[in-house]
């Protein structure tokens, strides 16, 4: 039976959908704008909550799971997200993101960030071209060197590509707190736009040298593993949020952990990954509302350490 919708209601619905897509704060149930941070090298503003794809978007060609991930991605954009981060290391994640971005027609809203992941330092351009084809983008907003693998050769080529307008921003990544000394040397010497490193309320080693250095050198910072690979949720278990969570702008544990990360003055963006629509909703809640100040951040640390 054909579905009968009055023309007027259909047009109102269509308009609302379009508005929700373009002005997410109006449909976020709040009247404030998304929290953004500027990329130091250009001043371009980015929403502080992005989306990672490690493990979560490697779904192969499974049509059922691709449909479900499309829901997650659509909600991410509706709530004002822009930065999507992937890597060739993540199996079919780049392919899935490319297919879904096209399906959702969200190319204009996307800040596309991926990585070069090959030991062969002469293969940078081919690696970038492969990722461009998978994502279906003409050029990446951000190209990073995955876990510093072959970074010297890759970085030289990425700098050339950026100078030629083939890339907008370049950076390097680490995870799990590995190779921080080497990362520090690279940050000191090289003209990077971004670094990506592990930072969360339980893993705060980056606060000692890397985050101050990023501020000093004008380098944007992306935080990976914001929930410590899910361990932070295991740690809090079924315990309720502290009564004062509203004072730091947190409505869920996900929001609590993310607000802690993005309230660090050196931080540009955190990239939580999820396979659940409900979790994406919680993550994107951290894009709005107040941020904790320094005293409140210490209170948050003390609370989590006491659990």
């Amino acid at each position, binding site marked *: 039976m054909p579905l009968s919708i009055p023309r007027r209601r259909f047009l109102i619905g269509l308009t609302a959908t379009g508005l929700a897509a373009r002005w997410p704060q109006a449909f976020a149930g709040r009247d404030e704008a998304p929290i953004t941070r500027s990329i130091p090298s250009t001043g371009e503003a980015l929403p502080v909550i992005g989306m990672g794809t*490690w*493990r*979560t978007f*490697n*779904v*192969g*060609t*499974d049509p*059922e*799971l691709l449909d479900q991930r499309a829901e997650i991605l659509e909600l991410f954009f509706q709530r004002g997200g822009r930065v999507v981060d992937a890597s060739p*290391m*993540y*199996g*079919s*994640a780049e392919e899935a993101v490319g297919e879904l971005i096209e399906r959702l027609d969200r190319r204009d809203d996307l800040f596309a960030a991926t990585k070069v992941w090959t030991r062969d330092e002469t293969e940078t351009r081919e690696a970038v071209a492969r990722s461009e084809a998978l994502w279906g983008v003409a050029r990446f907003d951000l190209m990073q060197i995955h876990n510093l693998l072959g970074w010297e050769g890759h970085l030289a080529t990425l700098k050339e590509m950026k100078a030629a307008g083939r890339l907008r921003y370049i950076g390097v990544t680490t995870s*799990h*707190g*590995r190779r921080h000394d080497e990362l520090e040397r690279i940050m000191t010497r090289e003209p990077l736009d971004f670094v990506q490193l*592990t930072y969360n309320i339980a*893993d705060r*080693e980056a606060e000692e040298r890397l985050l101050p250095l990023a501020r000093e050198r004008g380098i944007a910072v992306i935080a990976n593993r914001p929930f410590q*690979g899910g361990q932070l949720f295991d740690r809090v278990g079924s315990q309720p949020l502290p009564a004062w969570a509203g004072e730091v702008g947190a409505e869920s544990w996900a929001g609590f952990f993310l607000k802690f990360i993005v309230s660090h003055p050196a931080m540009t963006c955190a990239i939580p990954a999820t*396979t659940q629509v409900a979790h994406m909703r919680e993550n994107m809640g951290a894009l709005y509302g107040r941020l904790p100040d320094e005293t409140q951040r210490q209170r948050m640390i003390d609370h989590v350490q006491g659990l």
Partner: protein
Amino acid sequence: MDYALGDFLMFTPEVYLRLFERTNDALGSWLWAVVAVLLAVPVLLYQPLSWGRRLVPVVMAAGWGLTAALFMMRFYAPINWPVGPFGWVFALQAGLLMLIALRAPPARVGLIALAGWGVVLLVLSWVTVHETGTWRSVALPGVTPDMTAAATAVLAMAWPRRWRWGLLVIPLLWCAFSALVHWALGLWWLLAVPVAGLCMVLTALAWPDRQR
């Protein structure tokens, strides 16, 4: 901060468990043909005619080939890159079984081996069903890799010991790899399948030759 085994896996348990359902869906009604062939294997092994028993390694080779092409290469390799090379190794095992089919039929087997076959088929096949809650994810030998390796270990006992080493190196390697994957994914029930496969391989390697 340090790496855990799970950090080296790029997919979630949800995606992995879907592989079983998707493989069975891709086979469609051919799945019933697989079931019929599996039921025929113990009958072939029990009957006294050598030509009938010679069909068994041919059936096993077809199972390794089907597992390589469908489960491994088409569905699993895109989410877990080491599985791509393993797919070719599975094809190699199929070739090895065809060679054995030409050289020597398996011995006629007794009730112990048939009971082993029954355990493989009836118990281990349903572990994925227990994990997912749907019978559509049933894991059959000749279709899914752990079950194919475990079933091969049981059937290998029908050959002399000197042949078994050649037959069981690949199942041994696969079961070890698969056990690590299940461990890293935290799929504790499903971990029983490759662990059972490893036990069956080791038992088959130690099992004495039958008196012909």
